[in-house]
């Protein structure tokens, strides 16, 4: 482990007999995302023997391996020299994806509540949400579900007390300080402030996920009519 890492970071934890968890930060932050993305890129470019899967999150990277060909110790030896130096700011994004979002009517059932909490009108809250620059920290939970960094703090709102049984695909949600995009209709407790007509995950498309870890995201507010049009046109 690197000697100058603060507060025992990075930490290596066996997560199962076939997985090693690399903890790179104590919580969501741009520095943690930078470290996760850097290690993800290194391991994806030069996969160590026995690597099965890489599962990034806000402040950790789970390395899934085949116990037939490697061990926790061997992987630790492969990963440790790749530990990114701590405290690096988030590097500029390799690409920026524009995501049209309708912040109106039934596309945004919780916008009024979120706006109220911020002391804003719904229109002002939508403007604030759309104007902020975002970065994809990681994709998780379900295929193509993007967790974004960059939610303006006035918009942070706790989850719903009772999750919805169905959140429509494309919904833009807020949960505490997190904001993210639902690729498919699932149950969910995030506050819904808008909806994109784009398909966030389409298995027949290459790549299947619209967004990738590290992408910059810019939301573009669109009126309901345009949402309906784009939604109909999507494959």
């Amino acid at each position, binding site marked *: 482990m690197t000697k100058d890492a603060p507060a025992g970071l990075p930490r290596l*934890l*066996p*997560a*199962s*007999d*076939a*997985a090693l*968890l690399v*903890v790179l930060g*104590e*919580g*969501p932050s741009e520095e943690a995302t930078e470290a996760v993305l850097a290690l*993800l890129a290194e391991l*994806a470019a030069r996969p160590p023997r026995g690597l*099965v*899967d*890489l*599962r*990034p*999150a*806000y*402040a*950790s*990277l*789970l390395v*899934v391996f085949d*116990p*037939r060909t490697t*061990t*926790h110790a061997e992987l630790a030896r492969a990963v440790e020299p790749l530990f990114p130096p701590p405290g690096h700011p988030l590097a500029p994004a390799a690409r920026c994806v524009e995501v049209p979002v309708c912040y109106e009517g039934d596309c945004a059932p919780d916008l009024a509540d979120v706006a109220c909490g911020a002391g804003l009108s719904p229109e002002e809250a939508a403007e604030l949400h759309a104007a902020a620059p975002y970065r994809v920290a*990681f*994709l*998780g*939970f*379900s*295929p*193509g*579900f993007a*967790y974004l960094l960059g939610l303006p703090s006035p918009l942070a709102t706790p989850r719903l007390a009772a999750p919805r049984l169905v959140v429509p695909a494309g919904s833009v949600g807020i949960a505490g300080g997190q904001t993210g995009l639902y690729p*498919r209709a699932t149950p969910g407790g995030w506050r819904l402030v808008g909806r994109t007509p784009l398909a966030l*995950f389409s*298995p*027949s498309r290459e*790549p*299947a*996920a619209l967004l*990738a*870890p590290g992408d910059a995201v810019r939301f573009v507010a669109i009126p309901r009519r345009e949402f309906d049009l784009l939604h109909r046109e999507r494959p």
Partner: protein
Amino acid sequence: MIRVLVPGLLTTVQDLGRSGLGAFGVPIGGAADAHALRLGNLLLGNDEGAAALEATLVGPELLFEEAAVVALAGAPFGAQLDGVPLPVWEAVKVPAGGRLAMGRAFSGTRAYVCVRGGLDVPSVLGSRATDVATGFGGLDGRPLRAGDRLSVGTARGEPRGRRVDAAAARWSGPRRRLRVTRGPQGDWFREDVVEAFLSRPFRVSASSSRTGVRLEGKPLAAPTRSLVTEGVVAGAVQVPPAGLPIVLLVEHPSTGGYPKIGSVISADLSALAQLRPGEEVRFARVSFEEARRLFLDREARLGAPGVFLP
């Protein structure tokens, strides 16, 4: 072609799943009891990961329009071929026009209908497995329906034998006690809570799925600290605030925010997938070294002589 006469409760095309897409939130998926699928395929001379049908509790009825060689693997379902009982773990010739009625599981939950040559459905993101939750892969991304037709691929190898040795077949059987290693948040749980987890019986909930096995019983005291969402693996024993554990199965979300008290070992993941709703299960702690040894033992025996008998 194989025609689906009756689809059964949840019958899907599965192989060994798609790995390497975790960074896009895509689970590995595939056969819940991967070991059974591998044994069935190897018996028939297929690649171990050839696509087969996964039946769940209540199996399908299938009409083979052409002759085929099949092997049933996993839970015993009381299957019949043209009215004659069809044993599990045996390679059997099905004549053209043969009707296979899978029946119902009388122990365990999942059985595999492996076909010599494998099922020929398009590969999506590197696998023929059906992702039931998201709805892609397999046959149009969904469980089978009556009237569906499935193509059989071209056989590449010769069958390895006529049946699977009984001892090898038992690896995929249900276990009363699943072995677990310490979870990544194992030390977040009070010592008496870990002890309760390792001594208390839990009951398998009817709301279990390919995503996870939900347990019922006396709740465990969950840690009060909140966890930053992190990557998770099949076998992870999550303890949500309500205290009833959820053990992740093959189609689990790639990340999760509940603390994990343990992880079911790789050698017991098949047994986990075979737990039936209402059944009782207990957990026993093993070290990471022991877990690894048990898995390597089982894998070594898969390739050992005597697994496939004439």
